[in-house]
Each structure stands twice: as structure tokens, then as C-alpha cells.
């Protein structure tokens, strides 16, 4: 039985160790004030990336048209186009890692990727855990309505019924700023879109990237209000404290403004979904980090 005892002890010890690791981990991500980087694994500086000959960038693999994998198995999209340029300018190979929205911060905190380029919206809470570079895209609210009664100003909605999805920025924004708008709330996007098509509400509001894409593929509906509320920045992020890479990225984004790189990026990747319309383009694209 001695051998069994040893095995049992080993199992118990490893289980406990892993569990404590878990508790510790949660405390760190919950209570980290941003100045303490002891929890972050060793990130690679720009020199180390160049030396290793490879930059690892985390992107979405199922968020068409920002980061997705096409039918031939190749990564495509607005974020991927920029990632390819980063690797080219660093003079290294590009390694793309598929990430999920929920694990983007952890991938950086553990330095499993050098950069996250996954439609990452800059928020104060996230900025305490990762370092954001200059923005390369922006997102605000949009309002889509039927062509027969286009809503062109948010004020026109007073007294009317607006469809929103629960838990979105749109719900909070209209509750706080337009108390006279009647809100009709749904749990999921496809329910909300069906409601709009059935005429159960006068308009629907959510992120403008989302409504713009939807209106494109659904004739008879127009995005009358393209930007509303506060505009959020979308930016690349690096591991907290990786100053050389952060500076390199900021210089890169500033330099790319000369060739209007992100306009070209839009034409190559987003135009197919959002159209060539200049107004749409200006609503999304950010050059040189200037919002």
C-alpha cells in the first residue's frame, strides 16, 4: 500500500497547489492597481522580438470583417491587415493566435501573445491591466430605421419605440439621456432585428459597426444616425509595462498616417461590408491615433 499512499499524496498535493494558484490568480486580476506588475510573465521587448524572428499577435478568428478565417483557412480582416503590416515593419514572421473576447486580457498578462489586435475597446478598467497604444478605429452608437420613416436625429425618437438589446451600451445610453424614448428590450440580436423587420418598434440602436453592416445586407433599412453617444476607441494592446513595444506601436501608427494606411485597410477589408461611402469610412477609421 505504500506506493498507493504516495500516489494519493501526490494527487492531493497537486490538486491543492492548482487550487491555491486559482485563488491567487483571481485576487490578482481583481485587486491589481496597475502599478504592480509582479503577476505578469516576462514580455518580449522590441529587440527580443526582432531577435526571435517572430511576433505573436492575438486576433479574433470569428469576427467578420475585423478578424476571421476565410474559406481557404487564411486569416483576414481589418485587424489582420494591420497585424501583417506590423510584422512586415518589424522585419519578422507573423504568428497569429486566435483569442476570445473573454480571454484577451489574460493572453497579455501571461505574455502568451506580444500584441492583442482583436477589436479591443479602450476602457478604464482594461487600461489598468494592459497598456493600450494609439487607437486605429472607433466605435459609437448607431440607429437603424425603415426607409419609410427614417430617424435622422436621436431627438426624433421621443415618444416613439426604440428596440435595444439588454446589457448593451445603447440601453444604458438611452435610459440615461433620453427618458422619453420608449425602450423595447430583447435578449439577443436576432430577436431585435426580427422585431425591427416586423415593425414592432420604430428603430433599433446598438454599436454603429453592427447596424451599418446589417443595413447593408437588408434593403429597406437605413442607418439614419451613424454616430451617437460617446465614441469609444479601438486600439492595439501590449502587456502592462512593455514600454519599448508600446512606443514602437505608437510611432508606427503615427507614421502610417502619412500613407493613410487605415483608409487603405478599410478599402481592402471593410468596404465589402460597409461600402465605399466616405461618411461611413470616417465614422470608423482613425489615422495617426487622432480620434
Amino acid at each position, binding site marked *: *500500500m505504500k506506493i*498507493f*499512499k504516495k*500516489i*494519493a*499524496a501526490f*494527487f*492531493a498535493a*497537486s*490538486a*491543492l497547489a*492548482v*487550487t491555491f*494558484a*486559482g485563488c*491567487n*490568480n483571481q485576487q*490578482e486580476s481583481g485587486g491589481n492597481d496597475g502599478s504592480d506588475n509582479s*503577476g*505578469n*510573465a*516576462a514580455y518580449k521587448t522590441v529587440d527580443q522580438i526582432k531577435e526571435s524572428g517572430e511576433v505573436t499577435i*492575438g486576433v479574433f*478568428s*470569428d*469576427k*467578420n470583417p475585423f478578424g*476571421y*478565417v*476565410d*474559406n*481557404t*483557412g487564411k486569416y*483576414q480582416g481589418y485587424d489582420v491587415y494591420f497585424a501583417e503590416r506590423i510584422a512586415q515593419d518589424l522585419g519578422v514572421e507573423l504568428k497569429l*493566435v*486566435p*483569442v*476570445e473576447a*473573454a*480571454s484577451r486580457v*489574460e*493572453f497579455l*498578462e*501571461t*505574455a*502568451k501573445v506580444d500584441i492583442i489586435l482583436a477589436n479591443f475597446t479602450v476602457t478604464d478598467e482594461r487600461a489598468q491591466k494592459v497598456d493600450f497604444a494609439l487607437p486605429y478605429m472607433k466605435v459609437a452608437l448607431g440607429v437603424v430605421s425603415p426607409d419609410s420613416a427614417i430617424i435622422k436625429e436621436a431627438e426624433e425618437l421621443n415618444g416613439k419605440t426604440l428596440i435595444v438589446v439588454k446589457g448593451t451600451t445603447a440601453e444604458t445610453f438611452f435610459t440615461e439621456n433620453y427618458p422619453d424614448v420608449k425602450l423595447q428590450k430583447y435578449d439577443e440580436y436576432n430577436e431585435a432585428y426580427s422585431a425591427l423587420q416586423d415593425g414592432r418598434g420604430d428603430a433599433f440602436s446598438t454599436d454603429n459597426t453592427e447596424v451599418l*453592416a446589417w443595413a447593408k*445586407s437588408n434593403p429597406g433599412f437605413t442607418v439614419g444616425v451613424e454616430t451617437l453617444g460617446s465614441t469609444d476607441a479601438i486600439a492595439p494592446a501590449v502587456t502592462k509595462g512593455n514600454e519599448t513595444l508600446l512606443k514602437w506601436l505608437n510611432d508606427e501608427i503615427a507614421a502610417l498616417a502619412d500613407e493613410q494606411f487605415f483608409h487603405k485597410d478599410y478599402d481592402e477589408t471593410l468596404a465589402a*461590408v460597409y461600402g465605399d461611402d466616405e461618411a461611413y469610412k470616417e465614422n470608423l477609421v482613425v489615422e495617426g491615433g487622432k480620434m
Partner: protein
Amino acid sequence: MQGIEVLFMGNNLLRLLSGLWVTIRISLISIGFSLILGTLLGAVMTSKKPVIKAICRVYLEIVRIMPQLVWLFVVFFGVTKLTGLNLGGETSAVIVFTIWGAAEMGDLVRGAFLSIPRHQFESSLSLGLSKIQMYVFIIFPQAIRGLIPNVINLSTRMIKTTALVSLIGVTEVLKVGKQIIDANRFEYPNAAIWVYAAIFFMYFLICFPLSMAARALTKKHGGE
């Protein structure tokens, strides 16, 4: 039938199959380790010593209570944060599914061992067999009959749970499916149902032979 053509566009079918291979690889390795470690653990769990019993109990409960997703995050991210050791996604997945599988397997084996009549233990020992010989030659062959259906059940559960590994950056069959659906969401909004049907069929293809094997094995051992 609108949208079914998406399955045959580009390399989609091949990509789904290579995703399936990732699923099978992770599951089979984990199930293999779980079988070995779980059998040993099961034998340990039948111990009468309160301390050993308590330790096994705590291990089993911790593994059962914590969702597999949390385990994946703890091993993939937590270990790197604490030790700096950079485990790959697949390695982490195998570790997590082995920790889980061994615990569940151990409990199944314990149950199967306890179902063996007491006199079998006593007579083997009185014949002069060592404890290990007793388990290997007397107890385990008898326990295996009741064990097989449960082990197969656990294996199919493990295969299906591997879908969670996409959250730590491993692209398995379900994730490939989501990528295909999303890449075609503007041109073929109805592709989802066909892609999911294909994935359903693929899971069936790996799980069904397992339950067939289970039936055959149970019959074989039942005849003894």
C-alpha cells in the same frame, strides 16, 4: 438546402476534419492517462485509512465542483503567471482533462471495487497473493464488467467537453465550424445549420463506435 455549399467551399471540409483531429487527439491522450491514473486512484480510494479517504474525497470534490473552463484558465494562464512556465494550449488541455478524468475514473473504479464481494479480497489474501497481485489478477478482472459502460460514458463526456479548449486558443472542430459560419455570415446567413449538422455528424462518428465497443466488451466479459 441553401447554405450547404459552404461546407464544400475552399478547404472547409478539410479544415473541419483537421479540427476533429485536434478534438480526437486531446480526448484520446487524456482518456488514456485518466484510465491509468484513475485505476490507481480508485484502488487508493478503497483504503480504510481516514486520512487517505479524506484526501481523495477533497481531490474528487474540488475537481467536480470547479467547472472545466475554470480549470483550463487556471492551468493555461494561472501556471504561467505564478511560475513563468509557458504551457501550450493543447498541453494545458490534456493536463486539465486528465486531472478531471482521473478523478471521475477513480470514483468509478472505487465503486466497481466495492461492488466485489468481500470474500474475494479475503480469499485472495489468504491464498498468499500480495495486495497488488490481488488487484491485478482477482479484483480488476471482475470489476471491469460493471466498469465499461461507465468508462465509455465518461469518455464521450470528455470528448464533448473538449469544445471548451477554444477559449485557450486551441482551434478544435467546433471552433472551426464557428469560423466557417462567421466567414460566410453575409453571403450565406443560413450556413450555420449545415455546419452544425456536419459537426454533429462528426461527433457521432467518434462517439458511436465507442458505445458499440462498450457493448461488445460488456458482452464478452459478461460471458466469463
